[in-house]
C-alpha cells in the first residue's frame, strides 16, 4: 500500500519530469525521488519440473506466430498477447501488451525476459542480442511504473489504456504476483516497431545507473536500437523529400506547358468554339495540377512534422549518449588504482646458443608492464622458489650453472654456490631446515647434493643420479632416479643410499 501511494506520488511527478527532460533531467532531484531500486524476487524453492530454455523461448515464439495485427492471441490459457494499435489516433503510443494469465507458472524474471525476447525476435525481426536488451528494458520499465495509470495514460492511446488497470498494469517485482496480475506494456511507434526511446524513461535509466557498472552496456545497446529507428525514418523522409521535389518539378513543368499552349493558341487565333474547348481542357488540367499541388503541400507538412519528430528524438538520443559517456568516464575513474603495485615475478625466455634461457623480470599484475628486470639473463631453472625475501634458482655464470639466491627487489644475486649444478636440475628447498637439494656434478657424473642456507655444498650422494631426476620427499628420505632408470631412496640427513 505504501508502495502504491509512493508510486502514485511518483506518477504525479512524472509528467513534469518528462516535460523538463527536454531541457535536461535534474539528476539529484530524481535520485531523491527514487526510494528503492527494482529488485525482482524470483522463486527459490525446489522445482517440480524444469523447462528448457528453448521451451521457454518457444512460448514467445508461439505468441508472435499466433498474433494477428490489431488482435490478440491466447496461448494455452497461460499467456496472452494483445496488439493494441489505432492508426487513426495520431497522439500517443500504441503497444503490445503481454499478459501473464492465472495459470502461468513462470517464476523467474529471466524467463519472463526470455519469453519477451523470443516474441520480439519473431514478431519484429530483432536480432537475439537486440531483443534481449529490449526485454530487459521492458521489464524494468513495467516494474518501475507498476500500476501507475497516470503515467501510462499520459503516453499511450486509449486503445492501450482500455486493457490496463491499477492492479495489473506493468509487472510486480515479486514472482507470486505475476499470474493473473501482469500486463506488460511494450511501446510501439510508427510502422509498428518497438519504440526503444520510450523505454529510456529517466527513471529506467536511473535504475540501471544504480548497478555497479552503471548499466553502460545495455544503455549503449538501447541507444543503438533507437539510433537505428531514427536512421530508418531519416532515410524514409529523405526519400519522400526527393519525391516531393520531383512532384514540384513536374507541377511547374505542367504549368509552363499549359501557359505555353495558351500563348500558342492566342497566336493561332482558333475559331471561338475550338478556343473555348481548348481553354476548358486547359482549365481542367490546371485544376488537376492545383489538386496535385495541394496534395504535395500536405505531404510537405507531414514531412515537416516527421522531421521535427526526428529532430526531437535525435536530441533525446544525444542526451542519452552524453550521459553514457559521462558515466563511462566515471566507471573508468572508479577502477581501483593500487597504492602499491601488485608485483609478479616472471621469467622471459630466449634462445641463446640454441638453448632456452631466461631473465627474471617483475611485472605489474594489472597491466603486465615490466617494472624491472634482472641483469641475470641465463637462468636455467624450470621453477623459481621463494626463499624468504629472495628467490632460489639456478643460473649460468661464466658458462657454469650454479645455485643462487636472488634478491626479490633488486633481482640481483646475493649468494652464489661454488658447486656446479645440472642446469635443468630440480631444486628442492626445505627452508624450515635451512637446506636445499639439487643435482650437482662430481667428476663425470651427476649426484644429489645437499646445500646449506648459504648455498654451501655440505653433502653429496655417493651414488649417481639421472640429472633430470624428480625429487620426492617421504618421511626421512628423498626418492630419486638413478641413471639406469631405477628409483632409490636417499637419506635427507646425509644423502646416503638406504
Amino acid at each position, binding site marked *: 500500500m505504501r508502495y502504491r501511494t509512493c508510486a502514485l506520488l511518483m506518477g504525479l511527478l512524472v509528467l513534469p519530469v518528462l516535460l523538463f527532460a527536454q531541457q535536461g533531467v535534474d539528476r539529484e532531484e530524481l535520485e531523491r525521488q527514487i526510494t528503492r531500486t527494482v529488485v525482482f524476487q524470483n522463486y527459490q524453492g525446489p522445482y517440480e519440473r524444469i523447462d528448457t530454455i528453448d521451451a521457454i523461448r518457444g512460448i514467445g515464439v508461439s505468441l508472435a506466430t499466433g498474433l494477428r495485427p490489431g488482435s490478440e492471441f491466447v496461448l494455452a490459457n497461460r499467456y496472452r498477447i494483445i496488439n493494441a494499435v489505432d492508426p487513426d489516433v495520431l497522439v500517443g503510443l500504441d503497444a503490445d501488451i503481454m499478459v501473464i494469465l492465472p495459470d502461468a507458472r513462470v517464476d523467474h524474471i529471466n524467463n519472463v525476459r526470455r519469453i519477451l525476447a523470443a516474441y520480439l525476435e519473431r514478431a519484429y525481426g530483432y536480432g537475439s542480442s537486440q531483443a534481449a536488451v529490449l526485454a530487459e528494458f521492458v521489464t524494468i520499465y513495467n516494474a518501475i511504473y507498476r500500476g501507475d495509470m497516470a503515467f501510462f495514460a499520459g503516453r499511450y492511446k486509449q486503445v492501450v489504456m482500455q486493457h490496463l488497470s491499477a492492479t495489473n498494469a506493468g509487472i510486480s517485482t515479486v514472482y507470486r504476483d505475476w499470474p493473473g496480475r501482469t500486463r506488460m506494456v511494450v511501446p510501439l511507434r510508427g510502422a509498428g516497431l518497438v519504440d526503444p526511446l520510450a523505454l529510456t524513461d529517466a527513471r529506467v535509466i536511473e535504475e540501471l545507473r544504480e548497478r555497479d557498472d552503471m548499466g553502460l552496456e545495455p544503455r549503449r545497446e538501447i541507444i543503438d536500437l533507437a539510433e537505428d529507428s531514427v536512421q530508418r525514418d531519416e532515410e524514409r523522409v529523405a526519400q519522400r523529400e526527393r519525391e516531393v521535389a520531383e512532384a514540384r518539378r513536374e507541377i511547374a513543368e505542367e504549368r509552363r506547358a499549359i501557359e505555353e499552349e495558351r500563348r500558342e493558341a492566342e497566336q493561332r487565333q482558333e475559331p471561338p468554339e475550338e478556343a473555348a474547348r481548348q481553354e476548358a481542357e486547359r482549365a481542367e488540367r490546371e485544376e488537376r495540377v492545383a489538386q496535385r499541388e495541394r496534395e504535395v503541400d500536405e505531404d510537405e507538412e507531414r514531412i515537416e512534422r516527421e522531421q521535427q519528430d526526428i529532430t526531437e528524438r535525435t536530441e533525446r538520443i544525444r542526451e542519452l549518449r552524453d550521459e553514457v559517456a559521462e558515466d563511462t568516464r566515471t566507471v573508468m575513474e572508479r*577502477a581501483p588504482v593500487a597504492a602499491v603495485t601488485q608485483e609478479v615475478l616472471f621469467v622471459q*625466455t630466449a634462445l641463446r646458443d640454441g*638453448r632456452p634461457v631466461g631473465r627474471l623480470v617483475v611485472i605489474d599484475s594489472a597491466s603486465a608492464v615490466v617494472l624491472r*628486470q634482472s641483469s641475470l639473463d641465463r637462468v636455467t631453472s*624450470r621453477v623459481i622458489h621463494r626463499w624468504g625475501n629472495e628467490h632460489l634458482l639456478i643460473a649460468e655464470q661464466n658458462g657454469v650453472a650454479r645455485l643462487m639466491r636472488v634478491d626479490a627487489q633488486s633481482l640481483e644475486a646475493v649468494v652464489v654456490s661454488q658447486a656446479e649444478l645440472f642446469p635443468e636440475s630440480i631444486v628442492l628447498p626445505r627452508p624450515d631446515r635451512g637446506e636445499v637439494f639439487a643435482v650437482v656434478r662430481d667428476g663425470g657424473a651427476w649426484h644429489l647434493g645437499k646445500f646449506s642456507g648459504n648455498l654451501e655444498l655440505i653433502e653429496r650422494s655417493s651414488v649417481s643420479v639421472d640429472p633430470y631426476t624428480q625429487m620426492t620427499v617421504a618421511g626421512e628420505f628423498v626418492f630419486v632416479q638413478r641413471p639406469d632408470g631405477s628409483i632409490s631412496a636417499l637419506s635427507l640427513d646425509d644423502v646416503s643410499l638406504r
Partner: protein
Amino acid sequence: MNQHFTSRRGRVVTALLLWALLLLPASPQMTAQESSGADPMVFLPLWTHVPSGRLSGPPVWTRDGRMLFAGEDRRLYAFSGTGGRLWRTDLERLPATTVAAGRDGSSYVGLSPNLIAAITPAGRIRWSVAGPDAPVAIIPSPDGVVYGVWRNGAVTARTVRGAAVWTVQMAAPVTATPVVTAHGLLVVATGDGALTAFDVVGTRRWLQRFPVPVTALASGERLIAGDRAGGLHHISATGSVLWSRRPSESAIRDVLLDANEASVLRTDDGTILAISPTGTTRWRARPPGTRITAAALTDEGVIYAGTSDGRLIALNRDGRLLADHPTGRSAAVQHVGITRGGRVVTAGDDWVLAVWCVSSCAQVGPRAALWGHPRGGPGGTGVSPLYLGRSVEAYRDILDFIFLEQAASSDSVESQRRALADIETRVAEGRVGTAHVYVVELLVSIAMGGPVGRGRTPVAPSERERAMALLGELGDHTVSARFARILPAEPSPLMQSAILSMMAEIESDPDGDVVTAVSALVQPERTALTPGVGLAAVGALTSVGRYNRAEVRIAARETLIRMSSSEQVSPGVRAAAAHGARTLE
C-alpha cells in the same frame, strides 16, 4: 619414466617443451619475443576521451597537428596532440565515413543518408552537398579536388568550395574505400569485380576485372588490392595485374603498406598476414581465443593491432610479439591509428578513445611535429604519399588548356580579356569543371602580372584584378600563400587591395601566411596605408581569422588590435580593425 628422458635429443626437446611453461601467453601462431637485450615494449596510457558514441572511422591528423574524428553523437571533434579539445561541431546528421583531412586544414565527412560536408579548420560547416546515395568515402586530392564516392557507385569530384567538377556513375555499388595512386589516379572498386581508375579530369584511364569484388585497396609506390575471397593482387600503373596470390580463405578487410612496400593484411576472420613485396606470405598471426579487429602499420614495419577482447598488440616485421597489452576494458578495439610521433591511438566499441605512448612518454608536449604531417603531405588519407599533385605541364596536351594558355599569354590585351571572360563565364555558370586544375594556374600567372611561361608585356591592372577576383571565387588556398610572399613588395595600392580582397574571399590560410604578410604591411616603419588597402587588410584578417585554426585566429586578432591603434591607418580603418578584432574574440 618416459623413454624420452633417456636420450640426449629427447632431453633437449623436453627442455624446450618445459620452457613453454614459462613463456608469455602464446599460440602456435604467435611467437615469443626474441631477447635482443632491449627492454620489452610497453604501452603507457597518455590520455583518454569518451565521445558520446563510436567513431565513424579511425582518427585523422591535419597538417597542423590536430586530431579529428566524428562520432555517432553526430559531432566532429578536434583535439590537440596533448588531449585538449579544440572544438566540437554539431553535424546534425550521423557521420557515415571516416573524416578526411584537406590540404589546408579543413576537413570533410560523409553524413547519413546522402550528404558530404566540408568543415573549416575553425570547426564551422562551410558547405554540404547531397549525393545520390549514402557516402562511402571522401578523398581530398592534392590536386585541389575533393572526390566523393557513393554507395550506389557514383563518383563525384568537387572543388574545395563544393562546386561540381565531374560525376561518373559506375555500374555497381562500391565495395572498397577508394585510393589515389602514386600517379594521381582515383581507383574505385565495385561489386561487379571491376577496378576502375580515373584521372583528375574524370577520364577513365583503365579498367581491370576480377572474378570476385575487391574489398580493400592500398596505394604507396604500388597499388595493392585484396578481394572478398582472400586474394591479393599487385596492379601496375596501367591497370595490368603484375601478380595475384591467395594468402587467405577469408575476405581481406585492410591492406597496409610500409615504407618498403611490404604489405600487412587484415582478414575477415581476424587474422593478420605479412606479405612480401613479391606477394609471398611471410607469416600469419592470430591471438588465441580472439580476433584482430583493427591494425595500423608504421613505416618501419611495426604492426599495432587491436583485438575483439580489448587488447593492444604489437608485432615486429618478423612476426615477433613485442607487446600484448590489455586496454583495461573488454570491448573490442574498433580502430587503431599511429601518429607521426609514434603514439598509438585506439578507439573501442565502448566509445573510449585512448592515446598510448610506446615504451616512453618522454616527448609529451604540444609539438605539432608529433602529430602532423609534412606541409602538403596527405598522410593516411587514402592518397599515395608519393603523389603531391600535378603541375600545369601535365595538361599541355589538352586542347582547352592550349586555347586558354595561348589567349592568356598573348601580347594582345584583347586576347587576355577574352581568356578572362571565358573563365569568368565558366565560373559564373559553374562550368569550370575539368578545367579547374589548370585554370587556377593560368589565373595566377595573369594576376601576378606576367604571362604564362613567357616574359612579355605586363598585364594591365584591370585584368590582374579580374584574375584575382576569379581566384577568390575558386578558393585555392595555395594561391593565398603565393601572393602573401609578394604582397609587401607590391607597389600599387590598387593591386594590394585586390590581393587582400582575394585572400579574404579564399579564407583558407593554414600556415598563417596571409596574417604574416598583412602584419608586415602594417609595420610602423612602412608607408601609411591608403584607406582602401587598410580596409581590405581588415577584411582579409577578419575572414582568415574566422576560418582558420586558433593560432591563426589569434595572430589575426593581434594584428587587428595593432591596426586599431595605429597612426599608419585612417580613423575609419582603425574603427573597422577594432570591430574585426571583436568578432574574433
